[in-house]
């Protein structure tokens, strides 16, 4: 057990059991990599002492970028000199996390040489997280990455690496092209992604349907959730097949679970009152061979999700109830062509008036949703609220009243 490339003591325990062992991973890396080797050592110390041994590092980065690197230093460098510096790089993943092995192998070769040989696939935001290297290696790593066609993702007060669900690439429910939007938005806002200009971080996530397989409503300042406007497509034969062949208790597991109770099943036909369907996906999920979303598709844009710091966690809330994401675009509807302007208006306002470290959701809370909408030039819509206000503390806008009267 004196061999430091192998875990021992407490960590050794975590090599047992059926689930893949991260300890074994670090060990495997440690066979050829000194940083991984010392990582085991420091981690063992943490396990023994129940204490984390990393120090915050806020200054390192690659030239010209304000994000993409997280600085990290050991607080016991004398014991584990090879992880004295242990910065990570966040590498912008390809949309929906599809890879070819050749690209992956090249990243591996580079990282074996210049880093710890250990990585996260993927980080919570979606990046490939290259776990641990030294300050002098940052620039070379970056240069090799770009030569492989990869770039860094976000960290700090920037646009963070957008991510998306597998969507049209392998899912029948994608209501718009999540990969395209993730990619195009990433490309459009390269400057915002790499150079901090915001009060704080800002995240985009693209989910193809209300199942929200990228958890956008919980994690993205701006969540794009696919939805549809017209009627659910029903194949009644297939519904009966579910009932008869698959023994699905349609009444119990479908009709009864519908949040708006807008369905009925008489043992033969499934009836949906589509005007009252909340587009929750449940019936489609369960009877997926029989039901399909409508054909008039687009997405709901929601704003403001974040973790608890500072003002408490928020979920995103409805900003644009329905936006058409692909041509042909109608006349009087929000379409993806409005998107750049919408985003600019939001960033402009929040950029100007947001406090340091204030996420856009907190900013809206502070200035009020109504004022926010005014300022970015969107009309209030009942879809934006769970319910109208219950308190009478209304800042009546008298100017507006008078204007309206004049209008009449």
């Amino acid at each position: 057990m004196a061999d430091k490339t192998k875990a021992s003591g407490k960590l050794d325990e975590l090599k047992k059991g059926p689930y893949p062992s991260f300890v074994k991973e670090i060990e495997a890396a440690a066979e050829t990599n000194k940083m991984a080797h010392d990582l085991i050592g420091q981690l063992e110390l943490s396990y023994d002492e129940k204490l984390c041994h990393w120090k915050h590092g806020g200054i390192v980065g690659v030239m010209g970028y304000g994000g993409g690197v997280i600085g990290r230093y050991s607080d016991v460098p004398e014991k584990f000199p090879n992880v004295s510096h242990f910065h990570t790089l966040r590498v912008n993943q390809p949309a929906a996390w599809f890879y070819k092995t050749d690209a992956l192998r090249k990243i591996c070769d580079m990282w074996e040489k210049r880093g710890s040989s250990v990585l996260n696939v993927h980080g919570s935001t979606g990046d490939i997280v290259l776990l641990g290297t030294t300050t002098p290696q940052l620039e070379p790593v970056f240069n090799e990455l770009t030569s492989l066609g990869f770039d860094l993702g976000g960290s700090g007060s920037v646009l963070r690496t957008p991510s998306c669900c597998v969507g049209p690439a392998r899912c029948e429910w994608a209501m718009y092209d999540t990969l395209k939007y993730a990619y195009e938005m990433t490309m459009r806002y390269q400057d915002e992604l790499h150079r901090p200009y915001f009060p704080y971080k800002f995240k985009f996530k693209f989910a193809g349907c209300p199942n929200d397989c990228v958890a956008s409503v919980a994690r993205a300042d701006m969540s794009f959730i696919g939805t549809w406007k017209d009627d659910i497509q029903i194949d009644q034969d297939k519904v009966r097949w579910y009932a008869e062949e698959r023994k699905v208790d349609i009444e119990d597991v479908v009709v009864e679970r519908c949040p708006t109770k807008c369905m009925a099943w008489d043992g033969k036909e499934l009836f949906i009152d589509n005007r009252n369907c909340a587009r929750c996906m449940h019936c489609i999920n369960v009877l997926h061979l029989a039901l399909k979303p409508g054909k008039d598709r687009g997405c709901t844009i929601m704003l403001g999700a974040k973790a608890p710091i500072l003002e408490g966690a928020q979920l995103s809330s409805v900003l644009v109830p329905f936006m058409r994401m692909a041509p042909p675009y109608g006349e009087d509807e929000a379409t993806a062509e409005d998107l750049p302007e919408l985003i600019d208006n939001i960033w402009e306002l929040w950029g100007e008036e947001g406090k340091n470290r204030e996420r856009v959701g907190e900013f809206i809370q502070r200035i009020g949703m109504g004022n926010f909408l005014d300022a970015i030039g969107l009309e209030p819509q009942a879809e934006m609220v769970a319910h109208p206000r219950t308190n009478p503390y209304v800042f009546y806008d008298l100017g507006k009243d008078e204007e309206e009267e004049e209008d009449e």
Partner: protein
Amino acid sequence: MTAEPAERLTDIGPPHYERFLPPVVKANYGKWVSHEILQPGVLVHTAESGDKIYSIRAATARLISVPKIRQFCDIADKYCDGHIRWTSRNNVEFLTTKKENVEPIKQAVEALGHPVGGTGNSITNIVHTQGWVHCHSAATDASGIVKAVMDELMDEFTNMRLPGKLRIALACCLNMCGAVHCSDIAILGIHRRPPTIDHDRLRKMCEIPNTVAACPTAAVRPVTIDGNPSVEVIEEQCMFCANCFTVCPSMPLNDPEYDGVSIWVGGKVSNARHEPTFSKLAVPYIPNNPPRWPEVVSAVKNLVTIWTDNARPYERMGEWIERIGWPRFFEMAGIDFQKEHIDDFKHAVTTYKTSAHLRF
């Protein structure tokens, strides 16, 4: 630094996804019409054209080594024309158009120690964060607890016999990088000691106004120490969020004795049936007990069990609890309802029980 500004590439963005899409995906992009789960971990998607793609999904520890990725690549090269993807919950997926490749892939991946599963009504991978492996802020380890919990729950990864999906997530501190706040079960590292202040380093490293502004409860106040500006913490007002530490590295909260883990339940993200909702506090505190955090494992296991035994089909953890009511949940889970469970932050009043709808 070896900066060569002239030739240096920047702002190139990620590779275009089309570079990496399997041909069958390109051919049927946006034209998929249905899917089926053939067995746990194995999906088949069928396109309008009749084309099919098989996906074999396997667990990874997320923290992965270069050698392991190469091994995955070997499998993908052998069976998938070099195509491979990862999911939004850090499972790896091998993609093939050949049905006959499914079993060999499964066997090859499992031989590497990566169980195939995580589809349908199962427990899939635990979304988690850095912990002691990389973060300075961690109140607990991430990978270790995840390993211990998943070892225990593995049968629910490789089977699909649960009432609904069950999403577990872990974050090692209140920053909640794992976005655990909307999980069926969330494991959250917590500090329980106010920051200790190193006034000397603070003077050099930290900006006082930002540090003061960082505290959600206004517990951090500017003071002068030995003639130098610094800060103090009103301990009674501190709820250990560590946000001051994020802004000012000279105010660590880590404490081997008092740090630990809390467990939260009933959150969800999808719009299916109930609206997305936050997780709620179930177990306020369990001490760190590495390497296997047995108390955490058994608490999670217990939650999974009572839900499995009692929920109706497709009822997520939170939907089930809403139906039976929180008092019953605490009773069934054998958890003492304590002061800590009662919200006392900004919107606390909206969480009080304002009806006589009670069950006895």
